[in-house]
């Protein structure tokens, strides 16, 4: 059994947001524009968060990227009335874009705010449509789960770059951060600080397996019992 996951080392993280940008390019996430950003409707499968504590000059700022947690017990899945979202056999939580009816129950259910709704037909501008990723991934039943542009009215989210992983499997390329040249998610691929590891949480020889057991490891909102497959390593 495979269980894909990420470990994000916040001590190494530089808050550069290369992961955020790489994700959007890889996955054909549309530009929302000024209004959308203001209304907090812009789509970030991997979104950056910050929180400031303290008073001048004793301030601390905590910053972290938040992909989908690919929860082992995902609250977003059982609420879907049409089975458009599901936990796949490799431990990913995916959305079948051509099955989603846009009821947004899952968005309410997700405690991490990791799901986004397409309020508008995505626009890529006159020129920028040229760099769209042509990859298509369908699940076993033929539904689209990977990165083709999503229509208006459906929910989308991080897939752990399902297209990169499925392609590597087909081509027999090694997968995971522990392999030199191993295929990983777009965020892990670009992270200049080598802060993000991608791999199989079930594989004792993987980076993510080892790091997820590090004494600095923690998960977001652990007490909710969602059991995220994304781990963080604390600063310091």
């Amino acid at each position, binding site marked *: 059994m495979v269980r894909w996951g990420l470990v994000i080392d916040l001590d190494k993280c530089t808050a550069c947001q290369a992961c955020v940008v790489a994700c959007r390019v890889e996955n054909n996430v549309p530009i929302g524009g000024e209004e959308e950003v203001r209304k907090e409707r812009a789509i970030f499968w991997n979104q950056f968060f910050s929180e400031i504590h303290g008073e001048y000059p004793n301030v601390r700022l905590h910053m972290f990227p938040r992909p989908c947690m690919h929860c082992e017990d995902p609250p977003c899945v059982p609420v879907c009335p049409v089975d458009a979202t599901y936990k796949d056999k490799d431990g990913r939580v995916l959305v079948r874009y051509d099955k989603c009816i846009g009821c947004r129950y899952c968005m309410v259910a997700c405690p991490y705010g990791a799901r986004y709704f397409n309020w508008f037909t995505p626009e890529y501008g006159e020129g920028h449509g040229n760099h769209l990723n042509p990859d*298509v991934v369908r699940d076993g039943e033929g539904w689209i789960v990977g990165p083709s542009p999503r229509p208006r009215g459906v929910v989308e989210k991080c897939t752990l770059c399902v297209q990169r992983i499925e392609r590597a499997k087909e081509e027999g390329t090694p997968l995971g951060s522990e392999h030199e040249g191993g295929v990983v998610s777009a965020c892990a691929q*670009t992270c200049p600080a080598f802060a993000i590891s991608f791999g199989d949480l079930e594989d004792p020889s993987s980076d993510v397996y080892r790091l997820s057991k590090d004494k600095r490891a923690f998960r977001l909102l652990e007490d909710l019992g969602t059991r995220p497959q994304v781990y963080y390593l604390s600063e310091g």
Partner: protein
Amino acid sequence: MKLTRRDAIKLGVAAGAAAYATYRLGGFESLLRPAASGGYSSGALTESRVASVCLQCPAGCGIVVRVVDGRAVKIEGNPTHPINLGRLCPKGQIGLQILYDPDRIKQPYVREELWQAFQEGSLSAYLAAETRDRTPEDLIPVPGATADEQWDNALEVAAAALRLIRESSAPGEGPHQLLFMSGRNRGQMGGFIDRFCAAYGTPNHIGHSSICADGSPMAHWATQGWKAYSGYDWDNTNYLLCFGGAFLEAWRPTTRLLRAHGTMRQGRPVRAKIVQVDVRFSVTAAKADEWIPIKPGTDGALALGIAHVIIQANLYDAAYVQEHTFGFEDWTDPNGAQHVGWKNVVLQDYAPELVSGITGVPVETIERVAREFATTRPAIAAGERGASMQTNGVYNRIAIHALNALVGSFGRVGGPIRQREPPLASVPAATQDENAIAGGAQPAFDFRGTIYYPLAGKVYQGVPDFILGKPDPGGRILVPPYRAKALLCYYTNPLYSTPDNARWEEAIRRIPFVMTFSPFMDETTAHADLILPDSTYLERWHDDVIYPSLGFPVVGLRQPVVDPLYATRNTGDVLIQLAQHLGGTVAQSFPWADFLEFLKARYQGIFASGRGRVGDIPLSGIASFEGFWETFAREGVWSDPPYAFEDWAFTFATPSGRFEFYSQLLHEKLEHLAEEEAKKIQDPPPSSLVDQKLDQILEGLGLTARGDRVFLPHFEPPQYVGEETVFPLHLVTYKLMVHAEGRGANVPLLREVMPSHLRGMTNWDTWAEIHPETARAYGIQDGDLMWIESPVKDDRGSLRRIRVRARLYEGARPDTVAMPFELGHTAYGRWAKGMGQNPNRILANQYDLLGGLAAFSPTRIRVSPAGGG
């Protein structure tokens, strides 16, 4: 009942059909057909990965571009490129939005009036105009039935204008009247422009580093004898004391520094300590272990206070200081004159109590950090623009740099290192005719290296004042002995990026001929007479020698990953073509068919060295130059690791062969200028006259130090602009990672990225960070619009002000307002134009006169609520 989207489509319900239409975008028609099975497909007919080099900043990261059916669809890092090891920063990731920007300039453009003048043979009159008003609406595509014809016509117009200027026999006229301003000159491009200027006959290639970070190379020159940025062995240091360098936001080489942050934290025996001295709580400060807030422009004083503690407590590396430095103890020169050593200057002048008063840093902090720094080795003291682009920037940087000598870091593992250059082959110098020789011998337009700006290699930001005959920040009216007749701009946009940039509005009117090579309609290009648009970095051949960092030489090769989308041309090629059109010795100086051929000539040297590796392949195993070039183009990078540490003669290229606390080079330079001045009165001059002239020069530079201290690391008080009583706050500017190089405003995806350190702020607005108490005192709430008013006046004598969104920030000093550079464009495409504010509107044009550099933080301001919301 369960309703699926497929049902919805069958029923014609919802926006199903419209939604599905979007699947057609980018050729996804196949998706409309129901699929029989699952799995991955790309529907691609052809797919390749092409190695090249990023150009979103000067780091020179290796990239690999995924190209599908002729479209570039993803940029990733090149794993074998040592600067980025397969990784990229956010700017590198988004290069495709530069390539596919619909607002690119797609062919050459000319001002209609210029085209007419060219056709009617009245170019001389056009070039004789005293002033010229221009708007982008005057620009027309250069006529021509084909792209080649358009380019031929454009080049002929350019050559005709430049020929007239070059060959004018009127007194004071000639090729020196051409100013060639340039910015991101990577690899051989800077030298190529130098070559063009030499062949044409102008001393006026004016690069933009005097508004960038020139303070650092000057500090390295004064103390180590070489004028370049320094590398640092970050991976092996255990303590980083960083003054005003935005390590994680704007310092270069970006991706390398981001990786270094990781390697300083984890996967090593000791977690390095990072202390950030900064005027604001930046992302860099937040990710450091400690933030030391400091009053703008006083970084040098803090460094000297730290030195005081280290020396006083005898914590310095005495053996290193003895063996590798000059001027630490009191000394006697060969003429028998006594000189005070730096040690005694520091002990006398920079007691922590005094330094605390200047910097606002508590005495305990100075003492503690000094002890930590001196006892946690190897340690690095580094500094960048926050410390160096100040009125006292060069001395600040010298003082910071000197801390490395105290703890024995230079040239050693875990310390500052000097970058080695790649072994490129030289090519014969440009051929010069009489015109070129006469023009090249004229004094430079920007007064570089004179008594006014002794250390400057260029004074980019001064150009409008020199054109208009307006006083410089030293109150001196400097008028070159000739008029600027032509301005060429390559990868630089002075009308936007110069402090007090409104000075350019009139200055550019006074230049009869303006030509740019920009692929985008930036502010300067909008004022051009002729545009010869470059191809973007993903469409052209261009090498890149890495920004000083790793120490060992690394070069990369940029190549077209897709065919040029439009009728644009590589500026390297265009300079050759322009030279051909100009003919004579200018043409002779450019004997290459194109820029690629020139690059190959230079890179023969790398092949001949037999050293290093191409990608991962040892060069020694490659038999021919053709084989080398083919491998180089495929792999995208050549490098020659490892770095040899402790090469003292290379590390210290000073007269003494040591780190010079007492800078003999600085002494020599200023003494020489003083002598030249004295000679104007009496030749040979008596030494008292030289001393008197030196004193006058220092006076003119606004320096307070005299005697030996001038040549030693010391503190010069910053010169703020504006009365504290009227303008009670400081304004500082900064850069965001996603736009660090200030060129990202036209990239929608970067605009959409929210700042890492502020919640709920979009990049469509310019914000200013202000301390909550300060804001309250002025009746300003978080998110309110706020006026920032500076002492800079407009033509009508009113104070200049800009309206920005106030962000109450606990990380702001109560006396300092901080705002990012990036927005406030009046041109530059649909995503940039007319949005946000440009701080340069209200920044005073203030310098470090010694270095001729722009100071970005001396402006005082006042704020007030602007109403609205």
